[in-house]
């Protein structure tokens, strides 16, 4: 039958397609991992050395030597979890409210916060936080990271809430739920993939942001990306330690993403029959 022949052909074609899709990313990160384990002699030579003459863990060690890595990691964790948590807490209900009452004007206002470049916030925030005594505090960092995450969370969730049919919620209301109750019991579970996506994205943006911490906080509160800079010396950029630092800084996010994946795929569980 024509259908099954097409299906047979589809598989290897699809596989090839996936390979092509993954190639740039696979190559880049293979290169980065290899940079991190090779000694500097290999990292600088041309033609490029793909198979190293000897592997070394020195690059990773130098990252820990050049930064109080554990402290930075803790700071990053506090700020990222704090701002993402707060963002989800405030943002999910807000997105629901906007979607249901179609108040896109408010939505636009919220998006505005994401529109101005971060640079323009630095000076006024510094002055503001100094005046109210929040300079060099976790609170200040969490609030500023909220700016990055909240609009993102809200606008992603608006789309998901729009897709939840009102009938489902109305049914719950008839059964004795309040509107808020139907939000919690009906709408939210249905939009779990959205929450997962929004949460992980907000976390990533907060994790990778460091300029806010550099300007608004002192040495004790610096966040992890700073560790990447600490391995760069001025006389030469050390590729090995740089790659190692980048990998170390990215790992926690990667692990989190893997844990959260499950929630994103719940809707796809049925073997991907959508198209």
């Amino acid at each position, binding site marked *: 039958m024509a259908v099954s022949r097409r299906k047979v052909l589809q598989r290897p074609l699809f596989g090839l397609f996936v390979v092509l899709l993954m190639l740039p990313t696979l190559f880049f990160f293979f290169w980065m991992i290899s940079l991190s384990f090779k000694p*500097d*002699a290999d990292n*600088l030579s041309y033609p490029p050395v793909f198979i190293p003459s000897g592997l070394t863990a020195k690059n990773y060690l130098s990252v820990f030597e050049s930064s109080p890595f554990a402290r930075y990691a803790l700071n990053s964790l506090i700020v990222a979890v704090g701002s993402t948590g707060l963002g989800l807490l405030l943002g999910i209900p807000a997105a629901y409210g906007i979607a249901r009452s179609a108040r896109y004007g408010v939505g636009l206002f919220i998006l505005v916060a994401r529109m101005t470049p971060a*640079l323009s916030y630095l*000076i006024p925030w510094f002055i503001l936080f*100094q005046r109210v005594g929040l300079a060099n505090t976790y609170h200040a960092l969490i609030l500023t990271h909220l700016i990055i995450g909240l609009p993102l969370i809200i606008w992603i969730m608006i789309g998901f809430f729009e897709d939840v049919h009102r009938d489902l919620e109305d049914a719950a209301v008839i059964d004795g739920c309040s509107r808020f109750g139907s939000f919690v019991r009906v709408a939210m579970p249905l939009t779990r993939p959205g929450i997962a996506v929004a949460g992980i994205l907000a976390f990533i943006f907060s994790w990778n942001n460091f300029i806010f911490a550099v*300007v608004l906080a002192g040495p004790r509160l610096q966040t992890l990306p700073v560790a990447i*800079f600490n391995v760069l*010396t001025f006389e030469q950029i050390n590729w090995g330690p740089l790659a190692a630092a980048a990998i170390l800084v990215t790992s926690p996010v990667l692990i989190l993403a893997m844990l959260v994946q499950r929630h994103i795929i719940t809707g796809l569980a049925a073997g991907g029959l959508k198209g």
Partner: protein
Amino acid sequence: MSDKISRRQVLKLGLGLAAVPASTAWGGTPTAGFDWQQQKGKSLVVLLTQAPYYTVLQKMGPDFEKLTGIKAEIQVVPEQQVRQKLPIELNAKSSGIDVYASSMHVEKRLFAKAGWYEPLNKYLENPNLTPPDYNWKDFGPSGTWWVTWDDGTILATPGSLGLFSFMYRKDLYAEKGLKAPTTLDELQAAIKATHKAPTVYGFVGRGLKNANVPLWGMFLTSMGGTYLDPTGTNLTTTSPEAIESARMYASIMKDYAPPGAIGFNWNEAQGSFSQGMAACWPDGLNFAAPLEDATKSKVVGKVGYALFPGTAKQKPFSGTAIDALALNPFGKSKEAGWLFIAWASSRAVQSRLSIEGSLTGTRLSIYNDPEYLKAQPLPKDWIEAVKGSIESGRPQLPQIKDVTQFRDIFGIALTKMIEGGDPKTLLEGATREFEPILKKSLG
């Protein structure tokens, strides 16, 4: 980095980091008769820019604490972020930072006019606050000039002097029977003779806007030109020397530098040179350490170091810029901050930073010290070039408030010249654009 680690270990064993009453010229021995502990119990925040010597200084924080009882939180931040953090703090008169590193060639006039440097004269003149062997004169005129204001106020303590000189492949030059060029004509001839694209290019240098201005400045000064007139109030960037030097820079970059050099900063140029792809590279001598590191470079032992070639109007010289340590006038623990600065800029500490962190300080006593000469891994002619550069140093940038904007505007013009634009027109355009900015800053 294993070489450096073992050397550090040797120093540690040999000199002892704990206070040992041996008085070698270096080692962190506290000076007898000076009370380092007078500010005991205070704490400081120190903001340093990214540099290998500051990374070493950061690691020495515990030594400072042991010596003085002052806890110093030392933060090393890349230049781009420091440019955002520091002015915001100082502008808001914040006391969050006590001591900071200042790039005098960029910041001096701006910061001084803004009142962001605490004058150090009274600290230096106070025998209770400055160790008797500190020796300000040891910094030499090239160092002290940079940190002193027109009226004699001392703004900061001299740190690492950037020495823009000349590095070349002495093996390739020897093949052609050439020595280090001492005139621009010799330079051009050498570049042509050693140019064998695409394996070896005659020249590599900075083309990236902003970074390229000091390189052009070398050609300019060599020809006897200047950025400003003697009064410092008018630009002389359309003089015949300016145009001729820009033309030379652009044509060398276009014809003899590797493709893409138009976007090179020191980092890319260093890569090309250390992999043996270029026959000469004028840039800072402080970038030499990786060139002589066998784990990184293909040209170890083949690099010659010299001053930048001159002309009849200017003998060979180097272009200087300097890093310095300054005290925040709004800080809460100024005496403690001064003690940190005095310690960090002392002969003992600067010697160590020279060996381990490529500091090219201006303390002349260091370069003549046999201990230093023995411990310095870089070759003899590098040390000679450094000494010569310090003596013949001319500032590589104009002494104005808006240096960064100058570098930006003229840097763009230079880039356009490399792409084929006419030097005269472009210089005139850049001068016209910068003139009002200069006038405003002087007003």
